[in-house]
Structure formats: structure tokens, C-alpha cells
């Protein structure tokens, strides 16, 4: 299987405090990789190194390499804006812009100048909303404010917004943690659906979720990668004692 992202010897620091230790990991193309681990273990921090979102923290620093399609994204002169277009992100709490539903999805298309005409823009918005399984629910109120949607709908809108710029990778930082079970189920179905076109990395604190949706799972603890294996194996016959303890709920 082809690797989409390969991370090697990655260390991450907040100022002097080290938050990630020597992480090496391959993320295969068009698969779902889940990051699990107790809170504070660095899984979200790690996720955010993959689209250099941590650049927004002034004291953060990174060593090691993150190669996406063979290109080191931490190389000097990397176009971070272009990188983030290629590596989309969905956040823990839905964060629609104070605009209409349509304009939220159209935002990334417009700033990147992806569309060729107005009709093309509308088609792309429709496709993104359809891919995010939201089109049927919002097609009659595209011009109304995004804040009128329910929590689950807002999150799917944010997914649609990320899909609209045609990324190749989608990072999801606990995308369902603020949602009720029914909305969560819809997001999970959607994530599995999206695998056909996208490489997906999902951080979750919910182990059943990881087991249900992912192909491979990585277990983190205290900033270290403890184990990385196919999900099936991870949840039935893990290599590491720590992993087993965590999955069976024996600590914490």
C-alpha cells in the first residue's frame, strides 16, 4: 500500500517543554487512521503538525520530517497556504463562519479561485454538501445563516466546507465529541464513505468509534507513539501491554 504521509523522528516542543517524542509513522493513501490515547497524550498536537496548524502558536517548534507525497512540509520555503488546501481539517467544535450556508461552503472555493463560473461554483457547493450528506437537509435554505443549523448539521457543514476545496487528506480532531449519538452515527457513516476519495486521519477519545471506522489505529501516551497496527489486530491482539491495558479500560 502506498504511503500518503510519512512521518519520521518527529519531536514537538511548546517552548522548552517537549510534547511529542520521536514519532515515526506511515499513513497509507485512502485509508482511515485513528489516533487514540488518554487526554493530554499529544494526539491532537500530532494531528496539527500534519497541516502545520501549530504554526499559529508562537513558541511551538518541530524537528524531524513530515513527508506528504514525498515532499517535506517543514522544508524552508514550503507554501503553508497551499499545504492546508491539500490537507483539510475538521475541528472538535463546529466553527461555521457568520455567513450563509452556501457562502460557508463556497468560501474556500472562492479564495482559491477553483471555480470557472457561477454555475460551476453552485455545482461544487452542491457536490460538497451532498458528499457531506447534508444537501437534502439544507437545499431549501442555502441562503440562511449557518448558525440556524443543529450542532450535527453544523459539523457536517464544516466537513462540506473542507471537502469543497478538494483536499487529498482530511484531518479530523474529535469531530463528533460535541454531538449526540444519532449525529455521531451520521458523521461516522460519512467518514467511512469519504475514504473512497480521501486519506483520513481522525483523533478520537472514543475507542468504539476508532474500532468502527478506522483501518489502522495508533495509540499514544505521554507524547509517545506506543503502538501502530491494523485496527482489527489492535483491538483483539495488541502487541503492547500498555495498549491492552488502555483498550480494556484497566487504567486511568
Amino acid at each position, binding site marked *: 500500500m502506498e504511503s500518503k504521509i510519512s512521518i519520521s523522528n518527529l519531536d514537538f516542543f511548546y517552548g522548552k517543554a517537549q510534547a511529542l517524542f520521536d514519532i515515526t509513522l506511515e499513513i497509507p493513501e485512502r485509508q482511515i487512521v485513528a489516533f487514540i490515547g488518554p487526554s493530554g497524550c499529544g494526539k491532537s498536537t500530532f494531528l496539527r503538525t500534519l497541516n502545520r496548524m501549530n504554526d499559529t502558536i508562537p513558541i511551538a517548534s518541530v524537528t524531524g520530517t513530515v513527508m506528504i507525497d514525498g515532499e517535506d512540509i517543514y522544508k524552508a520555503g514550503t507554501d503553508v*497556504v*497551499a499545504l492546508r488546501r491539500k490537507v483539510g481539517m475538521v475541528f472538535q467544535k463546529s466553527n461555521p463562519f457568520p455567513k450563509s450556508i452556501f457562502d460557508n461552503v463556497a468560501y474556500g472555493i472562492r*479564495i*482559491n*479561485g*477553483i471555480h*470557472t463560473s457561477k454555475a460551476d461554483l453552485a455545482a461544487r457547493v452542491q457536490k460538497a454538501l451532498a458528499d457531506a450528506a447534508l444537501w437534502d437537509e439544507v437545499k431549501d435554505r442555502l441562503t440562511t445563516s449557518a448558525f440556524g443549523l443543529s450542532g450535527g448539521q453544523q459539523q457536517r457543514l464544516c466537513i462540506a466546507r473542507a471537502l469543497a476545496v478538494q483536499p487529498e487528506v482530511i484531518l479530523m480532531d474529535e469531530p463528533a465529541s460535541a454531538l449526540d449519538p444519532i449525529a455521531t452515527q451520521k458523521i461516522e457513516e460519512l467518514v467511512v464513505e469519504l475514504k473512497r476519495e480521501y486519506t483520513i486521519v481522525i483523533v478520537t477519545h472514543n475507542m468504539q468509534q476508532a474500532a468502527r471506522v478506522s483501518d489502522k489505529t495508533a495509540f499514544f501516551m505521554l507524547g509517545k507513539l506506543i503502538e501502530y497496527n491494523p485496527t482489527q489486530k489492535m483491538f483483539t491482539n495488541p502487541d503492547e501491554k500498555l495498549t491492552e491495558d488502555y483498550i480494556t479500560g484497566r487504567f486511568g
Partner: protein
Amino acid sequence: MANTEQSVHRKRRIVNSLMTILTAACAVFATSILLFIISYIAIQGFSSLSFQFLTDTPKPVGEGGGIGNAIVGSAMMTALAVVLGLPVGIAAGVYLAEYGKNWFGNIVRFVADTLIGIPSIIIGIFIYTLVVMPMGRQSGLAGGLALAIIMLPIVARTTEEMIRLVPNSMREGALALGAPQWRVSWNIVLPAAASGIATGAMLAIARITGETAPLLFTALNSRFYNFFYDQPMSSLTVQIYNYATGPFEVEHAMAWAATLILVGLILVINIFVRFLTRKKF
């Protein structure tokens, strides 16, 4: 398609850099203006500053003169404003923070903020009708009262903000010991917020020391040393105004020298407060 996207991308980068430069230019512009004004005052002011200037009273043009009585007048009126405005302002602030989560508190808060924005010359007119007209003359009392009214809402709102910073656990700790509410506010909360309130008060004092408009027709001016609140009183700011708008070069020079004293004082207070709060928070 790839081509148009690339050109869009280039354009976006250019716009981005351009806006970064533009916003930085705005910041550089504003700070340069400040530095220019301050250094201009320093250069102009120092050239006519002397000990005699600081102690003399205004004299007919050509015979020297100074701002001694103006310094005394400003100090006396500011002191009166502090004595009247500070306790009332702090009390109002404590009310807003500790009891003010109701409709009355909301109205007071709203009106206080609006009062802060009302032109100070309006306060001057108010005191003129309330104090000067019945007394039949302008006075240091009227000037001090006008400054107290300007100070009051500022002190009230900063006090409220400072008290809100006191952690609730401190209140609960005292209440759990069986202290009545007023003792908690008076003995625990107020001392905990004291340094914050003091810095707020200092900024308010800096502000009223620079006020001119409310003094123009309440305290008026005086060419002599005056130590009585029932008489017209000189102030640094009104004296600067008179010197600045006078026809003679020597008056203008004295205006710059007096400005150096006034702005120096205000800047020292502001920088001092900045230094204090920086260490604390």
C-alpha cells in the same frame, strides 16, 4: 484551469503581503506621531524651563513670569476631585461588582459608560449652572467639583473590573468562616483588589490633570497664588491655553515649557502604572 489557479494563487500572495505591509505602516505611522509630538514638546519645552518659571506667577509680557500658581491650582483642584470622586467612585464600583447583577446595576453601568463619553465641557456648563451662578463667581471649588464628576464614572467602572478579578473562592472561603457579606466585601475583596483599584485611580488622576474645558468657566483663571477654594483658581491647562493663544512669542515659549511639565507628569503616571500592572499580571 491549473494556470488560472496558479495566477489566482500569486495574486493572493501579493494581496497578503501588501496588506501586511499596509497594516504595519499604520502602526508605524501612529507611533511616529507620538514620538514626534513628545520629542517636539521636550525640545521646545526645555529651552525655556527654569526654576523661576516653576515658581513665578504670570507677569506682563517682557517681565518673565511663570506657572507657580497654576501648578498649585491644578494640584488643589485635583486633590478636591480625588477626595470627592474617589470614595464615591469606589463605592459605586463595589456596588456594581458585588450587588449589581440586576436591572438597576445594568442601568448604572450603562449610564456610567455613557457619562464617560460625554464631552467634559458639558460638565463645565452643568457646574456653572449648579455652583457658579448661585455663588456669583467662579471658584476652585467649582473646578474641583467638575473634575470629580469626570473622575467618578471612570473610577467606578475600573473598580468594578478589578473586583471581578478577585477569585470567587476567596469570597466563599470568608463566607464559610461565618463572615457577613459586608465584612467579606470590606475586609477581603476590597483589599485583594486594592492595587488594581489604585492603578485605575492613578490613571483617572492623570486624565483629570489634563482637562481644560471643564475648568474654563468654573475655576476660570487667576494671575496670583490662591489657596482658597472660594476664589477663582489658575490651572496648568488653562494657563497653557492662554499662553498658546496669546500673540507674543514669549508666551508661546512659556506654553511649551508648561506643556512639558504637564505631559511629563501624565506620561510618568502612565508608564509607572504600566510597569506595575505588567509585573502583576
